[in-house]
């Protein structure tokens, strides 16, 4: 039996293996970011890669997010395939100019002459008592931008399989890795196969309600679905996987089947992906719905440090359960 089959893998290892494989396969690929080399990455994702690939391909950068992200964009436009790692989404705000004002628009603005095949990876999310400046889920906000593709791997398989197609994609792809998932471990038998980066996936089938979610929300939603099942409510859990472009088809198929939708997102409601999904469902499936679309999202506050306050600000499985129990026509 192949060694890769049946093995267990952490999300962290999955990302690392994906990067190693890409570097082995394609000389144009290199990794660049703060502390990715000697330090092994601030979440230890790239540990050992400097030793394996050398300083030209695993590049420790100064604390210059705008500078090195822009460098990655320029290098991509000129024929390389950089993987830029930004420690967390919070620091990507310093690079937002390069991502939004260059990467997202260069192809369009140049009339289809210069494309930007860069991959920018970053950690996202809260829940670790890191307070307001270190706990954001801004993938939502990047998903607002035409020209970017936004991936949110929530499983080991996706963490392992999304990177290569992202590198092959001719346009800028941002990958958001929820930092609470790095230690998450799961059986992995994907054998290094890639996965598509265009569709949502049904992670749990059900007939009573569709939970639409991504990232860490998937894990909370699956927990809630198990509980609900004991009460006779079968929730279908859809992992969006890609926040831009959204896969309407999979989402709509699920909602058409269950006639109820609840969206779970640690990000904020206002102007977020939950608002977008809710609008799309109402626009297209209004007459299929048995009750209004519900949302379980992060409280609209900057993240507080105190644990009890932070936990209260984030969606919890119990909240998902209670929301669903109260939905019109649901009976467990």
């Amino acid at each position, binding site marked *: 039996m192949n060694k890769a089959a049946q093995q267990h893998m952490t999300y962290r290892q999955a990302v690392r293996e994906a990067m190693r494989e890409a570097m082995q396969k394609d000389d144009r690929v290199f990794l660049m970011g703060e502390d990715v080399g000697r330090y092994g990455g601030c979440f230890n994702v790239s540990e050992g890669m400097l030793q394996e690939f050398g300083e030209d391909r695993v590049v420790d950068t100064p604390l*210059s997010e705008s500078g090195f992200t822009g460098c990655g964009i320029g290098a991509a436009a000129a024929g390389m395939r950089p993987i830029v790692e930004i420690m967390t989404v919070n620091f990507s705000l310093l690079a937002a100019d390069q991502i939004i004002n260059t990467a997202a628009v260069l192809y369009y603005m140049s009339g289809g002459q210069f494309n930007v095949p860069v991959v920018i990876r970053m950690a996202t999310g809260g829940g670790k008592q890191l307070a307001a400046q270190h706990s954001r889920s801004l993938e939502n906000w990047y998903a607002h931008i035409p020209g970017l593709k936004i991936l949110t791997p929530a499983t080991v398989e996706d963490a392992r399989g999304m990177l290569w197609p992202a590198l092959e994609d001719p346009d800028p792809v941002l990958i958001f890795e929820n930092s609470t998932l790095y230690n998450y471990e799961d059986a992995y038998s994907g054998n290094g196969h890639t996965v598509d980066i265009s569709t949502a996936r049904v992670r749990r089938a059900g007939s009573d309600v569709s939970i639409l979610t991504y990232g860490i929300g998937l894990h909370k939603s699956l927990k809630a679905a198990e509980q609900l099942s004991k009460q006779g409510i079968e929730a279908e859990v859809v992992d969006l996987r890609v926040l831009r472009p959204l896969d309407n088809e999979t989402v709509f198929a699920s909602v058409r089947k269950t006639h109820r939708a609840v969206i779970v997102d640690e990000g904020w409601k206002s102007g977020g992906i939950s608002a977008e999904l809710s609008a799309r469902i109402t626009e297209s499936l209004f007459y299929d719905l048995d009750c209004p679309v519900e949302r379980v999202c992060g409280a609209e*506050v900057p993240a507080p440090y105190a644990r009890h*306050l932070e936990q209260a600000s984030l969606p919890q499985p119990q909240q998902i359960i209670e929301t669903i129990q109260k939905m019109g026509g649901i009976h467990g």
Partner: protein
Amino acid sequence: MATKKKTPAKKKSSRKSREKEQKRHLLHQMIRIRQMEEKAYELYTQEKIRGFLHLYDGEEAVAVGVIENLQKEDSIVATYREHGHALVRGVSMERIMAEMYGKLEGCSGGRGGSMHLYDKETNFFGGSAIVANGLPMATGVALAYKRQQKEAIACCFFGEGAVDEGEFHESMNLAALWKLPVLFVCENNLYSMGMPFELAESETDLVTKARSYKMKASSVNGMDVLAVLQEARKAVAYARDNQQPYFLECRTYRYRAHSMFDPERYRSKEEVQEWKKKDPITTFAEKLKKEQLLTDEELQHINREVAGEVAQAVQFAEEGTDEPIENLSQFVYSNSKN
């Protein structure tokens, strides 16, 4: 205050006693920081303090030497490694500890934690946890003071890693261009997380760099509290009197991991030991003993006194209250009601 009529001998002895008092005060302040940080470390391992925790051990002489020169009206903008700055600025150890516990009695009401200590009372504009994020802020504070024709200056602390960021350069230029009274204090502890300073900067002479903005600048041994005190005195006076920015590099070293845990692959244990030989507290205490300004008993007394302060701060934090969850959205906006 010395009066003019005192005899030279008396003058000398009162100067000597003032000097003794001041030096002991500096030592006391550094020991307060050290002991508070050591306790914070312990409390983190007990999970009483959570999140990130960036300790200041080894760098005490910088905060103490600089802040000693500030006036009450002056402001401080600091980073996530700011416990020491808050403490010597006058935020009580109790309120700092309570903040690290996430309690309502903390100096940021438990919303900020270790990285975000704030105190309006002492013009402590806090700990920002985004590298270089405080520099434009400090520049703006100085702009306000200048417009308001105040005598006050803004004092901004940051690590050498901030020098890599665009915000550093933009702020340096603005402050010099607009002639704003900011003191930029770069705490050069040689590493920004795992990144060695010399691998991050093409020009490692920070004074040269600052001067390229036509800013007055100097560099000082940040392990020597008296050297920092004297250099910062000149810098503060220059910024205040001339309404101009000043860049001060303090060469120092962080003893601990960047945050609580890091594999420290980027430096050797020997290097850390070498720096510990230059410890700002032990070397200064030795110096005072040699100058007969301090006895072993007196040093022990200071240590005991500070240990008492730390114990009391911990008790205060332990007895602190959790903010009711209903108040979660208070302070999102200035006029939020609940």
